[in-house]
């Protein structure tokens, strides 16, 4: 590592519409290091990275490159200065060839100049060889996997001889094998003396790849640490200001009668012979690998795609659930996994989204009463601490966590006695997660039966009274909380038949 920093940021601050999202960040980035930027969504790490890349301009503060003050006014300037931002889903021109994508926007020849096709393709081939990847540069970008598209972006950074390459959550859409390749290349670029900023939520990747890490919280730089000196626990503490363990409260709730019982539920090709029960006041976790059939079981219970055979009892009485409205009438609620697809009405207001499940309540005489609508929404906003500018703004404008809260609010208005939550905290910040854990605990304490599908084992271990495990469409374990550990759950979740095809196809 050289002594003089490649980039020296001093007092970098940024306001959006009067709200300060980044305040007084001082940070030195050294040549030849991989530097992680960590923090919850909205902590300011992406804003800082975008300021470096010229996407945003700082409200205050200065940047120096190799000791020289610079102004990074736009992405083109950034590229000329040797700074490249690689987006998670690379921004490319899908209809144009890889080679052309590499040179587009370069300003080294006149607008009315000829396009040097042959030269361009040869240059692109050389870059791919240099990176050690096999990509046909004459093919349109559209045909490339996300991983290959990222490689093209890295190649573009090399083409302009970038000294600083910023990767914004590059690994999220990649397979483990692709992540390995990316890391290998990142290390090689570092060894060439380039600097890499690595933004990620996955702490194990930070440990595996990065030299130093800077943690942001609420728009401020909290600390910069050498990665070898700290544990994940330390980092989480810096990110949220308190240890994760303290976030999870399980309100002791009284466990009552069986509320939901399914037996012998089967759907060929998806799941078979699923039997379990959930009692009032109980939180039952449903663990398993992606593709194990957990969501399919939930959808079957709720009547979205009813099972071919098997019975469902609600409060001890056998019921037929042919479609979701039957389930709703029986006091069930289902918060689906992918809120963007199955949950929200993106362009409608928060208010309309929250009251969508209870037309009878808001329109007692057939006409919608604005007063009731408003009152119901206000109640939800307060109860669930939904952060918004106005209840009439489109729900799509809210952050992921707040959208998720609004969806939960919608179902709470139906006063459900049995709540099925499918990955309720996926993709939301740790802070908001804590609020969710609180809420789920309270809902159970009020005597509701809760079935919680989650892929996050710590979440299940902290919240649930019992944990069911599925593998390849079958129930493989039913563990009491006292007996459940990450190991026992994973042991039951890993398929025994050696048939991984189903899982990877999901």
């Amino acid at each position: 590592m050289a002594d003089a920093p490649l980039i020296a940021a001093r007092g970098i601050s940024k306001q959006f519409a009067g709200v300060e999202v980044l305040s007084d960040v001082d940070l030195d980035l050294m040549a030849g290091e991989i530097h992680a930027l960590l923090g919850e969504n909205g902590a300011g790490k992406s804003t800082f990275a975008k300021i470096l890349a010229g996407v945003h301009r700082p409200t205050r503060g200065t940047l120096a490159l190799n000791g020289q003050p610079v102004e990074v006014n736009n992405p083109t300037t950034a590229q000329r200065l040797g700074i490249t931002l690689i987006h998670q889903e690379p921004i490319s021109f899908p209809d144009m060839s890889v080679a052309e994508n590499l040179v587009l926007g370069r300003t080294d020849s006149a607008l009315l100049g000829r396009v040097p096709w042959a030269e361009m393709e040869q240059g692109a081939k050389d870059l791919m060889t240099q990176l050690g990847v096999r990509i046909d540069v004459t093919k349109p970008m559209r045909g490339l996997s996300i991983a290959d598209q990222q490689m093209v972006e890295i190649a573009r950074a090399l083409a302009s001889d970038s000294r600083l390459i910023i990767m914004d959550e590059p690994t999220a859409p990649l397979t483990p094998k692709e992540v390995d390749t990316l890391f290998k290349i990142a290390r090689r670029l570092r060894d060439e003396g380039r600097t890499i900023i690595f933004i990620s939520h996955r702490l194990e990747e930070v440990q595996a790849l990065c030299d130093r890490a800077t943690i942001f919280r609420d728009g401020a730089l909290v600390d910069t640490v050498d990665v070898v000196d700290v544990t994940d626990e330390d980092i989480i503490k810096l990110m949220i200001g308190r240890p994760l363990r303290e976030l999870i409260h399980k309100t002791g709730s009284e466990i009552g009668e069986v509320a939901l019982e399914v037996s012998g539920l089967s759907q060929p090709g998806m799941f078979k012979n699923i039997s379990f029960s959930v009692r009032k006041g109980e939180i039952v976790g449903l663990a398993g690998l992606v593709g194990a059939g957990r969501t399919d079981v939930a959808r079957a219970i709720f009547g979205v795609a009813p099972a071919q055979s098997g019975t469902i009892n609600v409060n001890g009485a056998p019921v037929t659930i042919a479609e979701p409205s039957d389930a709703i009438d029986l006091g069930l609620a289902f918060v689906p996994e992918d809120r963007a697809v199955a949950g929200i009405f993106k362009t409608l207001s928060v208010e309309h989204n929250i009251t969508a499940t209870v037309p009878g309540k808001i329109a007692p005489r057939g006409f919608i009463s604005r007063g009731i609508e408003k009152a119901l929404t206000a109640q939800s906003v307060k109860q669930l601490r939904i952060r918004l500018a106005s209840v009439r703004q489109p729900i799509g404008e809210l952050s992921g966590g707040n959208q998720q809260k609004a969806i939960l609010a919608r179902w709470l208005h139906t006063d459900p006695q049995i709540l099925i939550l499918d990955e309720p905290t996926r993709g939301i910040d740790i802070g908001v997660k804590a609020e969710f854990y609180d809420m789920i605990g309270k809902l159970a304490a009020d005597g509701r039966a809760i079935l919680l599908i989650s892929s996050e084992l710590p979440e299940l271990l902290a919240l649930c009274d019992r944990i069911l495990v599925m593998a390849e469409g079958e129930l493989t374990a039913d563990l009491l909380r006292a007996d459940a550990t990450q190991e026992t759950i994973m042991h039951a979740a890993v398929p025994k038949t050696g048939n991984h095809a189903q899982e990877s196809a999901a």
Partner: protein
Amino acid sequence: MSLITKFLSTLLHRREAGIAVMIVLLALVVGAIQPRFLTLETLRIIALAIPLILIAAMGQMMVLVARHVDLSIGSILAFSSIIAGIMFRDLPDVPIIISIVAAIACGGALGFANGVIVTLFRLPSIIVTLGTLSLYRGLVFLVSGARQVDPQYIPRSLIEMSQTSPIFGIPWIVILAFVIALLTYFFLDHVRLGRQIYALGSNPVAAPLRGIKVVPLTILVFTMSGALAGLTGIIYASRFGYVNPGITGVGFEFTVIAAVVIGGVSINGGVGTVLGTVLGVILLGMVNVALPLLGVSAFWQDVIYGAVIVIALLIDKSVRDRSARALAAARSAA
């Protein structure tokens, strides 16, 4: 794979090859029913039907590639045509070439206005140009006082452009149209500014991040479309020998958009070739000539144009879906 089979497979996978095959099939089928279709005389009629569509299609193609659409070209054509006609009639001392240049400049100005409205107010071009389609037609009536420019005022030399030929009996206007197509090809495929139009249409969000100046580029594209529609207005006067405010260029945008879309230019932007567009225009020109020869009523023409647009869009979509599926399959196999 041998070179020949490789060549054949590229050929089969290209949209242009499909249109070329359709052109041959159409010629054979229509020729079998009505042998008169396969004569030199018919070829000449088809060739004369092409320039009008082709020149405007070059402009429309650039607009579609940039992920916009220009519905106002029929009215721009009429405006340029009436301006030239009025100048021929009322200012007989002005050299013809000046009137022609003025007419093209008017077309460019109206296109420029489209581009400015679309970019300045960030409005969808389909709505803006629907508005100017009507607005510009209104201007045509205003400047002409709703009066037709009669045939005796159209200069002889202009009319002869459609009738005389410098070489192989190919009329001047046909040669002009193909020269413009060639220039467009060169601009779009070999000039950096032309490639930027593809980039803009392929990903309008990414384009400014790569330093592409979106606003001037968009205005330029609409201006070129307008100027080419203006030139088409001159060709119109040459071909038909009169300009009528209520007839000239009415419904022209549909013909042109149909030809461009048949030619494989995607309405989603970023995709399209000059060769494809030329073939699309030829195919449509053939249909134009074939229908009356087959005794199909002129009333059916609109039905057929509309159907052709919808079918071309369906083909476009199915090609895209299929290639997306093929890519996904190739990816998961890898």
